[in-house]
């Protein structure tokens, strides 16, 4: 399906072997993010700046080598901004990005070599391809910019097109409007892989596709991951897709992490009411399981003025007094599983919180 033909020159080593670029070994997270903050100034008045939109408001997480981290949340929760910050399309206001043990911006890791190792696939397959360039020209642009000769870059483009399931002789010379949405997204994936990245950020990469095409592209992504030994950060609002793809899941709400942990644990037994509500709002195919009441009502509050205390308390069915005043920290609730909810933390003051071991 994904043209796993002969391995060709220039391709990344297959899974199992060690990447010569690997520095810290398997225990070292590929990417670690610490205290990431991005506030956008909204349009101001005559003097000075207007109120700020807290798009990403203090986010820490890590992605282990070879895993897929799924990121979910409603629109506006900051998941796309996080992706753009990781790609350095927007510069974060605060926070460190550490890639394989090396701080981005330090002497050991400058922006250019970082960008060779981290690439992104955008949501809109049409908007992310230059309408005036043929498919192979778009894919060859990156390698060409990194010093490959024109013919070598084109050869790599052809190889990658074949690997994403597009026969280069047939598709290479086409313009984006001459191929289908699924094919375009395959081209975008090929383009992102052209620089042999180690981490691929997929920002709603399959959301705009038809269900059947989506499944094909997801399978392709799984194949490519194995083949090239990739690490994915997979952003989606579709929990089913995230369930299929991810090893771990991160749930974001209003620029903060609500819950993060192993995919099975989070999706089977969410510890944050927001995650539970998201799961419950998934349309079910079982008529008996349908809900009479929407589990999550209303829009998320304005990120210009996030509510005090727990950001979710305005929409939370379990909100108690403590939720309105004190912001919960992202605390461990199970092995490798963290949630920012007072209910999950013993002794938090929430009536439904587990009792402290002392009192028990």
């Amino acid at each position: 399906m994904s043209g796993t033909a002969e391995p060709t020159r220039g391709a990344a080593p297959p899974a199992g072997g060690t990447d010569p670029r690997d520095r810290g070994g398997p225990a070292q997270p590929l990417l670690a993010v610490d205290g990431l903050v991005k506030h956008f100034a909204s349009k101001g008045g005559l003097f000075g700046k207007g109120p700020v939109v807290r798009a990403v408001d203090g986010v820490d997480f890590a992605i282990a080598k070879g895993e897929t981290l799924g990121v979910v949340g409603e629109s506006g929760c900051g998941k796309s901004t996080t992706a753009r910050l990781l790609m350095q399309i927007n510069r974060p206001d605060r926070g460190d990005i550490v890639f394989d043990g090396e701080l981005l911006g330090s002497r050991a890791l400058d922006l250019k070599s970082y960008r060779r190792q981290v690439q992104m696939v955008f949501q809109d397959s049409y908007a992310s391809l230059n309408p005036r360039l043929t498919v192979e020209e778009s894919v060859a642009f990156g390698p060409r910019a990194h010093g490959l000769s024109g013919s070598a870059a084109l050869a790599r483009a052809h190889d990658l097109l074949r690997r994403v399931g597009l026969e280069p002789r047939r598709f290479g010379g086409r313009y984006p409007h001459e191929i289908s949405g699924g094919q375009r997204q395959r081209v975008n994936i090929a383009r992102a892989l052209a620089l042999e990245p180690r981490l691929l950020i997929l920002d709603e990469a399959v959301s705009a596709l038809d269900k059947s095409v989506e499944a094909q592209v997801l399978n392709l992504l799984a194949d490519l991951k194995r083949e090239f030994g990739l690490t994915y950060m997979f952003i989606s609002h579709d929990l089913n897709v995230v369930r299929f793809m991810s090893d771990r899941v991160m749930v974001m709400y209003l620029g903060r992490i609500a819950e993060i942990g192993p995919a099975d644990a989070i999706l089977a037994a969410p510890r944050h009411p927001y995650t539970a509500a998201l799961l419950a709002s998934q349309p079910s195919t079982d008529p008996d399981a349908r809900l009479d009441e929407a589990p999550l009502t209303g829009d998320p509050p304005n990120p210009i003025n996030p509510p005090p205390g727990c950001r979710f308390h305005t929409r939370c069915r379990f909100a108690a007094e403590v939720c309105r005043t004190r912001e919960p920290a992202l605390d461990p609730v199970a092995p490798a599983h963290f949630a920012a909810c007072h209910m999950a933390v013993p002794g938090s003051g929430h009536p439904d919180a587990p009792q402290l071991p002392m009192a028990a």
Partner: protein
Amino acid sequence: MTAPTTLASVDPAGGAATAIETAELPIQGSRGYWGSVLRRLSRDPVAMAAALVILCIVLAAIFAPLIAPMDPFKGAMARRLRHVGDATYWLGSDELGRDMLSRLLYAGRLSLFMGVLPVVIAFFIGSGLGIVAGYAGGWVNTLIMRIIDVFFAFPSVLLAIALSGALGAGILNSIVSLTVVFVPQITRVAESVTVQIRNRDYVEAARVSGAHPFAVVRVQVLGNVLGPVFVYATSLISVSMILASGLSFLGLGVKPPEPEWGLMLNTLRTAIYVNPWVAALPGVMIFMTSISFNLVSDGLRSAMEVRQ
């Protein structure tokens, strides 16, 4: 019309599932963007007629020495101001007894040159400035666009005449003044298109590939900006023709006895009571050229508006 175009109409979502397996359509040299624009333009009868008129005028100007029945500079006082339809002077003769037809043909050379060249020069300068301002953003943008704003504070006719008036009459000075008039207008369009393009995903994808900004602009931005700017520039040719001839009409452009439509219109003003139709002829040429450029530009714009 041919096989590749039918593929473009495949529904991106619906047809996609099977497209991978069934896309058997042969692709031999798929059509680029400009190819399809030209094809649509060729189906626009008004634009094609106007293009034909321009072609005729340009050819007549180029081959004037071969076509013109007489010497455009040699007059005869005895044969002044003959009427249109005269046996020797088909389009009459001017106030110095020179053959109007010959002069009109020769005049096309300077009039077209002075009308088109400023727009061409301004297209290069303005696109460059606009792309730099739009892509760089920040203080570079502020600096360039604020200077451009100052030139926008002058109505274009006033600016052209003020500059020509200060520099003095002459062909070169007219071309310089008109170029200065059109650079700000083209810069503004190029800047706003560049700002739009710069935020497209494909430009961001190119940026995050770590490519040099120059390479990003050259490969990803330029082709997408120059198209719309080019169409805008073609719409300025009409204005430029009118202004260039207008400068000569005022005596600020071409100097006599050189034939130029605007200048001819001026020198024949004395004849409007004696031989009004001959006096109006040079204006007909300016008008025909100007309206043809406008119609071609309109056609080009609507041919480009269609998105596949």
